[in-house]
């Protein structure tokens, strides 16, 4: 059996414990690490990038987004799952830009973490209406920078975001577009990847402009 390696980064001991239990309970998951600081997590990632990174953004010694960026750079097929208290949009968008493909409310039922990781590994990704709307606005906004002139969204992807933003579930979106719910979540994941690549492109462009990169 192929096991899924999971690294958990969470500074709250109580949550760290709950998440570790949720992972170790699953026979096909393997806990590759459980740390509470950014520096420790960075050190682990430098050795080996796990299949899945479960990370809290607000860490005592830094931003979890930096860890995600590093991990995804080293191993692009790594799935990063962000833990969030309120699911408030800006933090989630920031994480997706860093390379995250999923996010989980911290008070979700215990089984949700495992389900979410399985969905991610199966090629899907979750999305809430607010995030969908934000992504639409973000990726369709009139280009302010020359590097971002072309919308990276396909018509189908934009349609999916519009329907999700209106409050439809993946099954309902799939029904409306005559595709399976699984295809819908696969599209969502692709959109996340695009945003992350897109924002990396912007970062490169800006860095070049600033003379940081040659």
């Amino acid at each position, binding site marked *: 059996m192929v096991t899924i390696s999971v690294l958990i980064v969470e500074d709250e001991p109580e949550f760290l414990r709950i998440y570790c239990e949720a992972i170790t309970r699953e026979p096909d998951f393997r806990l590759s690490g459980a740390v509470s600081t950014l520096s420790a997590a960075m050190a682990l990632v430098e050795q080996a990038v796990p299949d899945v990174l479960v990370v809290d953004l607000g860490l005592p010694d830094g931003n979890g987004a930096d860890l995600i960026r590093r991990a995804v750079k080293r191993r692009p097929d790594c799935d990063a799952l962000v833990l969030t208290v309120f699911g408030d949009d800006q933090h989630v968008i920031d994480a997706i830009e860093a390379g995250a493909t999923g996010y989980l409310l911290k008070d979700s*039922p215990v089984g949700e973490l495992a389900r979410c990781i399985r969905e991610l590994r199966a090629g899907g990704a979750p999305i809430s209406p607010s995030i969908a709307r934000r992504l639409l606005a973000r990726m369709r906004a009139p280009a302010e920078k020359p590097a971002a002139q072309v919308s990276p969204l396909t018509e189908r992807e934009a349609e999916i975001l519009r329907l999700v933003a209106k409050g439809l579930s993946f099954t309902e979106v799939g029904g409306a577009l005559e595709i399976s719910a699984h295809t819908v979540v696969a599209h969502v994941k692709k959109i996340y990847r695009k945003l992350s690549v897109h924002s990396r492109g912007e970062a490169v462009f800006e860095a070049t402009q600033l003379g940081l990169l040659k």
Partner: protein
Amino acid sequence: MPPVARALLVSLAVATAAAAAEQTLHRDADFAVSQEAAAPPQEAPWRHVILPNQWKADRPGESGPGWYRVTFQVSQPGREPWMVYLPRLREGGVLYVNGHLLARVPEPDAKTWVRWMRPHAFPIPPDELRPGENTLHVRINPANRDRIISSIHIGPDETVRPLYESRFFLTYTLAQIISAVTLSVALFVIALWLRRRMELDYGLFGLACLFWGVHTLNYVIEAVPDPWWIYWRVLRYAATGGFAVAITLFYLRFAGIRPRGMTRAFAAYWLSGPLALAIGGSAWHPLVDRYYQAGLLLMGLVMIGAAIYAVWRQRSLISLAFLACALFGLAGSVHDYLLSQGLVVNPEGPYLLYFAAAALLGVAGVQLVDRFARSLGAVEQMNVTLAQQVAEKERELSANYEKLRGLEHERTVAGERQRIMQDMHDGLGSQLLTSLAAVERGALDSKGMAQVLRDAMDDMRLSIDTLSPGREGLLEALGNLRYRLEPRFRAAGIELKFSYRDLPERLDVHAEDALQILRVLQESLTNVLKHARAGEVVVEISLQRDPARFVLAVADDGGGFDPAIPASGRGLSGMRRRAQQMGAALQVASDARGTRVILSYPLPATA
């Protein structure tokens, strides 16, 4: 040589030649009546007369062609060319020197109407003259209206010609010039007036120029084929009267007098003469010529009155000039009138009105130009002032706008604060308070405690959802709620279904009401989770029209409860209170097959 320069030279010549002129001027003549083709003989009953002579007034009874005889001395004929010059020979005549025909000035006859405004001069062939006494005969046709002859100059060409030429310039060339100039000015000013109809002064001035131009043609066109004569006269009187009326009205307006009735009376009088002549024909001509023109003189009095009024009110140079012109104009008119009626002392004097008219038009023109320039200046000044005012207003407006925006912002912030306070008070605050009471009473186990905290979290999320900026309205918030609750329903093994009917792209509901609607939905759904033991819950969201309502229905297939028992609780009273607060209706129906909660929220008319 330009006409003006020539006129100056001529007048100089006139002055120096004055002494010589005395010798050439003949005022003594003899008069006789004779039907013969040749001049009456020496023994005919010649009578002494003084030139200029009006034979009609002198001897009204006499008929037949009238002959005037003037004798003059020539000492050395043939040494220099001689000339005979008559300042006025209005209706023509035939001149003989020593019995030989010298010249025939065309006279009015059945075919042609003639009235000579120009002077006449003819060189005398040297061989016609003899040493000593010579005789000039002038024959005047008795059919002529006035039967007038002016004084006669006879003398050497170099003495007489300048007199003739200056007279020709004054009475003929000048008339041509004035006619051409006034007609040109008239075209220009009338074109201007047609573009700006409200500027009546331009119209009156243009018409005055036009009429005066046409009137002055009368001095230039001296012979008209007879069938046309009557129309020529009609036109002439129309022009003269039109000029008088237009220039009088112009100066009345200049003086600040706007008499409506007078304008109509003037216009009516102006039309009367030409109409009478056009309808009545030549029989009416003497009457019109005498009385219609006399009536026009009265307008001169009106003008003088207006001029005095203007001087008194304005005390300006231009009003004084106007008064002078008006006086000159009236004097000239009276003079010309008497002259044309054959009633004046000096029947050979030049017509004066057209100098006076030129002066009147000139002053009017100066006044118009002055006003035009002033109004241009005023417009420029006004533009500057206007630009300043606009800039000033712009500054005020932007300052006001800034202030308004500041106030608006303060108001929004205050409103939001009020809403958050209210929300804390009603929602989270009271929830925590009742939970605290229950914990202190020892009535809550850890599971109950977890539930209380979870509810508090949920409530806070709803607040955040509706408070966050840039929300796309109620539908998105409902979607978010569903997205959040889905894992719990999944964990509980309950299928959560949403159905949307007739919904618009977005639905904007006031933030407070949106929060209440979300709370009702959340409460209903958590009730299903906690109590219903259901397999499926369906949330139906729809819009209804007439009246516009947003309807939210939550139906589960659980065990149901008795809504009549208050103790069953389940937050029903809270939901009712919320519905009431936003003016919505809440229906709860429950039986053994399940529970159904329907919230019906009235939308604003514009939604």
